[in-house]
């Protein structure tokens, strides 16, 4: 009888359906509770595991909350100066064309201080993957305004809300790089629900496979929450993201290769 079955009967190696990938180290993540960085890290490592590419992958960590990504991802990694990850990735990929090379960057890192490195790596069509975690804010330094902060959105350096007239417009860098001939695959994803996570993982996998096929640059934006910076609980932050971020940063593919 099903009702008699106990958890003990179910929790057995042969019944395992899901566990954290071994390519994440056992170190507890340094991220705030509910922060999307953790999920994004996991997806990248799951893809590397599925491709059996641990020995063929080099990752570049940014400056930002994910500066310590190398503590959590069990692959060879380099930690770049703020915004410069695509430059490091460019050289590594050109020197090791058969390796998978990816950058993992926040929105301040990629779309403010690193704009030039981002655009030119994209424009050259470097055969790499860029994972871009957009949480609309500078998380690490305490919630300052980012290039991606929404109009009217509060941050510690736009305490009355981002006033576009004086502070400028939020930058849709993903749409911008999609214009460049060097980008092969550009998509915007999220990781706040199971369905979103599954889609995001597919996109990341496609991006890595594109490297194998020498297709050029794949750019994966992940719209994520910074619940600490936004001063909300994680679930509130995810809801706020759905209500406010997604209308501006629409999810879905922006540039899909013609097959």
């Amino acid at each position, binding site marked *: 009888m099903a009702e008699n079955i106990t958890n003990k009967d*179910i*929790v057995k190696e042969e019944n395992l*359906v899901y566990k954290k990938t071994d390519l994440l180290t056992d170190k507890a993540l340094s991220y705030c509770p509910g922060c999307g960085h953790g999920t994004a890290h996991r997806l990248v490592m799951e893809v590397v595991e599925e491709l059996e590419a641990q020995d063929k992958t080099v990752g570049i960590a940014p400056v930002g909350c994910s500066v310590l990504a190398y503590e959590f991802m069990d692959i060879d990694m380099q930690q770049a100066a703020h915004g410069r990850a695509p430059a490091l990735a460019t050289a590594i990929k050109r020197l090791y064309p058969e390796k998978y090379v990816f950058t993992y960057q926040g929105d301040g890192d990629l779309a403010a201080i690193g704009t030039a490195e981002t655009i030119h790596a994209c424009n050259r069509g470097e055969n790499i993957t860029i994972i871009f975690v957009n949480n609309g804010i500078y998380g690490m330094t305490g919630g300052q305004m980012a290039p991606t902060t929404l109009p009217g959105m509060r941050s510690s350096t736009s305490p009355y809300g981002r006033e576009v007239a004086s502070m400028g417009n939020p930058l849709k860098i993903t749409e911008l790089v999609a214009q460049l001939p060097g980008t092969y695959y550009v998509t915007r994803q999220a990781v706040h*629900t*199971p369905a979103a996570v599954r889609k995001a993982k597919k996109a990341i996998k496609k991006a890595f496979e594109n490297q194998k096929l020498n297709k050029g640059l794949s750019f994966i934006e992940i719209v994520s929450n910074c619940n600490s910076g936004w001063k909300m609980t*994680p679930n509130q932050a995810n809801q706020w993201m759905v209500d406010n971020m997604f209308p501006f940063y629409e999810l879905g593919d922006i540039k899909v290769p013609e097959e």
Partner: protein
Amino acid sequence: MAKVKGSIVVDIEKCKGCEVCVPACPTDVIQLAEEVNGKGYHYAYMANPDACIGCANCAIVCPDGVITVYKKKVDK
């Protein structure tokens, strides 16, 4: 008729009590415990274990990857 029964194991000490797994569960299995773990977080647990179908939704949204999921076919 074959039915599926699931179960999850939460790595209590690594759970940050963020509650993201709670709305992700289609069958309302998970709640946060009254008690706290070593870091002071109310950790996730199966408040309604019988309802678990082993879909892994909770595990794949858990930012800290602390949920392991099992499932077994059982005959009615």
